[in-house]
């Protein structure tokens, strides 16, 4: 056993830190740290900087313009970005579609789509969930009917994250209704500028417009946009879900969040001292820090196994559950830390441009919104209940 990074890994970490100090502007990092909602241009500018350094596609092989990094390097990279409060890399093109195309796409598709993901020309979003069909694909209803050189697509997708910024969507569609539910599904790439595609934002509980409904009304999709074989889409979708989950625990985000709690609790007054010195608050903080220290090692163990060629199966589910619980506990601590200032909701105060003296401390304005927004962590991407069921079946064989 050896719990420390190798010399090369530590060097790599220094490289990442140097890159961040030169390329991540304090203004952008502040926005992320304070929980501001980023605009499309914020994301695009950050992606462009990473791409210029060749670091945007951290999980792609070199031949497609990726980094060729080991799993440990990717974890270091993700940790450092999160700790520096860099914007998260928007994953739909880079860590979801990219690997699917690389494995199952044809040459033409790879040539056509992969470079445009890196360049930022295409912004992808994900079309899996439908109203009434979350984890249960049996009820997937968006249909694609082959008509000559086109599929005619009708139906609706929902919870499409950042779909308002996207020009392409990868979708699971039903191409055969007469077979077992999972057998008749195909994986289709749809240009969102096609006639018949419309996007409607869903405002979330914290006022954020980050997810959307996407409607398809007689949309014609060229057959060359089919990935792999017709009716084999579920295979590709599963690959996408189980592949690339090294960061499923959200370790970097939790570390950054915890650092933020400490920063806030060291600024907040408590009676005649500071909140950080209050034994009850300190106990809450220490408890989650201890959990996080252990989870970091659990995460490394899973990565090490993956690096040794063992696919992390249900272990991803364990990391997902524990990781989201820890992240949510941290957002709860942040809301507690700011006291009565958890009530005001002032997103405009941290979205830049405001030169006035802040009405309330800038670190406080988004804490309750973030607390509510992060409830999604245990719901989207396979709810924690689904993950527990996977654990029971796969590991405990119950």
């Amino acid at each position, binding site marked *: 056993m050896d719990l420390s990074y190798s010399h090369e890994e530590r060097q790599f970490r220094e490289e990442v830190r140097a890159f961040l100090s030169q390329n991540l502007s304090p203004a952008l990092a502040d926005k992320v740290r304070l929980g501001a909602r980023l605009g499309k241009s914020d994301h695009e500018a950050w992606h462009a900087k990473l791409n210029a350094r060749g670091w945007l596609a951290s999980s792609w092989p070199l031949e497609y313009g990726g980094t060729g990094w080991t799993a440990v390097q990717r974890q270091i990279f993700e940790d450092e970005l999160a700790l520096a409060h860099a914007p998260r890399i928007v994953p739909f093109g880079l860590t979801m579609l990219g690997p699917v195309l690389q494995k199952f796409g044809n040459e033409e598709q790879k040539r056509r789509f992969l470079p445009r993901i890196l360049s930022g020309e295409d912004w992808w979003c994900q079309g899996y969930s439908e109203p009434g069909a979350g984890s249960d694909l049996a009820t997937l209803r968006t249909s694609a009917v082959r008509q000559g050189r086109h599929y005619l697509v009708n139906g609706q997708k929902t919870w499409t994250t950042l779909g308002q910024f996207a020009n392409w969507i990868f979708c699971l569609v039903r191409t055969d209704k007469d077979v077992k539910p999972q057998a008749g599904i195909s994986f289709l790439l749809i240009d969102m500028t096609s006639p018949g595609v419309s996007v409607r934002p869903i405002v979330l*509980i914290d006022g954020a417009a980050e997810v959307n409904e996407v409607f398809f009304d007689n949309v014609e999709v060229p057959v060359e946009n089919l990935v792999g074989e017709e009716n084999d889409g579920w295979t590709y979708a599963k690959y996408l879900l189980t592949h690339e989950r090294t960061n499923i625990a959200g370790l970097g985000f939790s570390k950054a969040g915890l650092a933020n709690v400490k920063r806030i609790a060291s600024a907040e007054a408590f009676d005649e001292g500071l909140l950080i010195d209050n034994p009850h608050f300190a106990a809450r903080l220490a408890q989650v820090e201890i959990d996080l220290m252990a989870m970091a090692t659990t995460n490394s163990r899973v990565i090490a196994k993956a690096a040794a060629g063992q696919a992390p199966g249900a272990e991803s589910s364990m990391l997902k559950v524990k990781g989201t619980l820890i992240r949510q506990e941290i957002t709860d601590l942040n809301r507690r830390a700011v*006291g009565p200032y958890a*009530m005001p909701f002032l997103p405009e105060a941290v979205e830049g441009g405001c030169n006035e003296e802040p009405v*309330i401390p800038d670190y406080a304005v988004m804490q309750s919104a973030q607390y509510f927004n992060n*409830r999604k962590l245990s*719901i989207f991407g396979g709810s924690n209940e689904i993950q527990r069921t996977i654990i029971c079946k796969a590991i405990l064989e119950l």
Partner: protein
Amino acid sequence: MNFQLTEERQMLKESLRRFFAQNQDLGLDEFWKALAELGVIGAMFSEKQGGYGGEGFDLSVVFEELGRAGLKAPLMQSGVLAGGLLTQLGNDDQQALVEQIIAGRLQLAFAHGEPRSRYLLRHVSTTAKNCDGGFRLDGHKSVVINAERAKKLIVSARTSGTFNDAGGISLFVVDKDLQGLQVHGYQTLDGVDAAEVRLENCVLPKSAMLGQEGQAFDAIEYQVARATAALCAESLGAMESAKELTVDYIKTRQQFGVAIGKFQALQHRMADVLIEIEQARSATINVCGHLEAERGSRELHVSAAKNLIGRVGRLVAEECIQLHGGIGMTQEYRLGAVAKRMIMIDHEWGDSDHHLQRFIELSRG
């Protein structure tokens, strides 16, 4: 022992439930007027004070229904906190304002908390210094609910002592248009109007003082106890709403061909939610039933109840959102409003951690 509501309160409860259900979209001003007409504001005050209620269980009946309906009303500020302070400490002129409140003609706000006071009631740094036979106020009051709509504020300020003394705190009735008073308004996450209030060189006549100089702490603590009892009831109403929405939802939402309410793991979690809501109801009864007890007992129940309500509110909000899944995360759906209210209530007059520590201190006597 008797846990039945009186007939009058039972009738009030039922009429409020009907009225609130049918009038979800009233604007704040219309709603305030309607509350006056229904006599709801009067229910916050005793007969002697010009109302017909004023006891803990009068507050709880009204606020539980407000919480259940997810409605915002400045009732807490005008009817309980500022209104209560006026009746408790006011001279004849000041008492006269209460009639206007009950009639729905006057709204007030209570400006007490400060940027560094967190939830400590005695922590007042705003100063009131003698000047030319009156007082000059300077300071910053934070998260003052209803400040913009209020015509007058009741402001606490220190006439003696250091920032952490219970003694030396005085109250002033301040017109909103007073020179030197600045109100920076905003909304809270759950859509309530609040503001930062800054006082700079605000000069007041001696007559603006409410009660005895430097003696306001006990009255503040007592009125905050009443407000806390009302908040507990409001949160309880919100919990009941969240529970009903969730039970209805999991009975109808299908997954893998069955209603998700048939999944045992979800059922058992819902059972725990139900058990804790019953605990919240008991804690609310306890605090409402001890508002007129001697200070030690009253405040012990205040902190016990607010701690428990804060914990259970979090559990109910989180579990109900989780059991709903995605739909529970949307602004549009009714659950969000009550869930946010439960969490925001944790930040009014002390969260569960604050009241746990206060309970420990009070237990030591």
